[in-house]
C-alpha cells in the first residue's frame, strides 16, 4: 500500500466535521442554564477525553496484534496511537482544569473522579516513551512496549472503577454523561465526538505516514550506500 494514500480525503473530511461541530457548538446548542457559556467547553473536553481513552485501549489491542503476529507494523501503529492519545490527553487535562476553575473556582478538584482517573492514566502513559527509548535493541523495544501497552490498556477501566468507588461523596454531576442531555445538546455532543475521532484518526495517519516514509528513506539510502 502506498504511503499516505487517503490522507487528503481524511484531512478534508476532518476539517469539514470540525467546522460543523464548532458551528453547532457556538450557534446551535443552547446556553446551559446554570453554567452559561462556560459549559461549551464540555463539547471539547469530554469528546477529547473519550477519544484519548479509546486510543489508549486501542493501542493495547494493537499491541496484542503485534505480539501475536510479530508484525512490526502493529507496533508502529500502537506507538502512534498511544503517542497521539497522550497529546490529546494533555489538552483534556488543560480543558478540565479550565472547566473546574470556571464552575467550581479551583483549577483542580479531587471530587471529580473522572478527572482524577484521567490524571492517573496520564501519569502511567507518560512513562511509555521513557520506557521505550531506554531499550536499544529495536525488536526488544517493540516487544517490551507492547507488554506495557497491554498492561496499561487493561489498567484504564480498572483504574476508573477504583477511583469512582473511592469518591463516595460524588460531586453533583451537571452534565457528566450524554444520557441525560436534551436533544440539541446530545446532537452537538455526538457530532463533536465524531469530529474529534476523525481528528484523532487524521493525526495518527499523518504520523504513521511520516514514520513509514522515514523508515523507507533509511532503508533505501542504506541500499544505495549513502550514510
Amino acid at each position, binding site marked *: 500500500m502506498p504511503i499516505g494514500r487517503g490522507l487528503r480525503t481524511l484531512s478534508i473530511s476532518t476539517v469539514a466535521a470540525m467546522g460543523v461541530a464548532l458551528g453547532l457548538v457556538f450557534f446551535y446548542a443552547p446556553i446551559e442554564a446554570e453554567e452559561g457559556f462556560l459549559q461549551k467547553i464540555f463539547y471539547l473536553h469530554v469528546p477529547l477525553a473519550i477519544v484519548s481513552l479509546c486510543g489508549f485501549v486501542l493501542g493495547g489491542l494493537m499491541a496484542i496484534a503485534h505480539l501475536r503476529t510479530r508484525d512490526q507494523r502493529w507496533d508502529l501503529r500502537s506507538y502512534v496511537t498511544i503517542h497521539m492519545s497522550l497529546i490529546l490527553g494533555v489538552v483534556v487535562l488543560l480543558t478540565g482544569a479550565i472547566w473546574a476553575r470556571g464552575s467550581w473556582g479551583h483549577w483542580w478538584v479531587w471530587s471529580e473522579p473522572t478527572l482524577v482517573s484521567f490524571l492517573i492514566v496520564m501519569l502511567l502513559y507518560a512513562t511509555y516513551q521513557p520506557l521505550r527509548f531506554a531499550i536499544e535493541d529495536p525488536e526488544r523495544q517493540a516487544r517490551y512496549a507492547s507488554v506495557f501497552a497491554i498492561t496499561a490498556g487493561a489498567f484504564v477501566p480498572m483504574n476508573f*472503577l477504583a477511583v469512582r468507588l473511592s469518591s463516595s461523596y460524588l460531586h453533583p454531576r451537571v452534565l457528566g454523561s450524554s444520557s441525560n442531555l436534551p436533544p440539541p445538546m446530545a446532537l452537538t455532543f455526538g457530532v463533536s465526538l465524531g469530529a474529534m475521532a476523525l481528528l484523532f484518526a487524521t493525526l495518527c495517519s499523518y504520523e504513521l505516514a511520516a514514520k513509514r516514509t522515514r523508515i523507507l528513506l533509511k532503508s533505501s539510502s542504506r541500499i544505495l550506500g549513502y550514510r
Partner: protein
Amino acid sequence: MTDNPPTANDARRSSARPPGLAATVGALLGKDLLVELRTLESVPGMSLFAVSTFVVFHFALNQNTVSGDEAAGILWVTLLFAAMLGVNRLFVADAEQGGFDGFLLAPVDRSAMLVAKALALLAYLIVLELVAVPAFGLLLLGSPLGQALPGLLAVLALADVGIAVIGTLIAALAVRTRARDLLGPLLALPLLVPVVIGGARASSPLLSIVHPGGLQLRWLGTLGLYDLVFGLIAYAVFDFLLED
C-alpha cells in the same frame, strides 16, 4: 551465588522429561529465597526503610500518634515505597549474573519465572509487614493495633498479592532498560494506585479511634478484582519479556 539456577541442572539430570510447572516454580523460588537469605540484599533494607519512614512521618507531620485516614495513609505510603525497593532489586541478579540465560536454556515453562518471582516478592512483603506493622503500632498508631489486626491482615494479604504481581511484571519490564532504577517506581506507582485506594480506604475505619468500623467488603472486592485481572494479564504477557 555464582552457579546457574538449579532448574538448568535439574533438567540436565533428568533428560527424559522436562520438570512440571510446580517443580520449576519450587526450584526457582528456593533459589531466590536462598540467595536472599545468604546475601540479605532486599528484605532487611525494606524493613529498615519502613521504620525510618515512620520516624520521618512523625517529624514531617509533627504528631505523636495518628489514627483513621492519616494512619492508613502513612501505613500504605510506607509499605508501597518499601515494596518499591524490593521491586527494583527483584531481577537485578538474574540480569547481571546470567540467571536469565540459565533459565532460558532450561526446557521449562517460562511462566514459572513469573510465579516464582511473584511468590518471592510476596514472601519479602510478608516479612516486611511482620516488621513494619508492629513498628507502626508501637511508634505512631493511636488506637490499639490488636483490634484492627484481623481485618488489617485480610487487607494486607489481598494488597500484597496485587503488589507482588504488578511488581514482578514491572521489575521484569524495567530491568533490561538503561534507567531501570528510575523506571521501576515510575511505572509501578500509577499502576498501584488502585491498590492504595483499596488498601487505605479499607484500613482507615479499622485504625480509627473516633468511629472504629469494620471491614468494608467493597474494598476487599476491589483488591480481589485487581489481583485477578492483573494476575491473568501478567500471566498472559510475561513470556514475551523473556525471549532473548
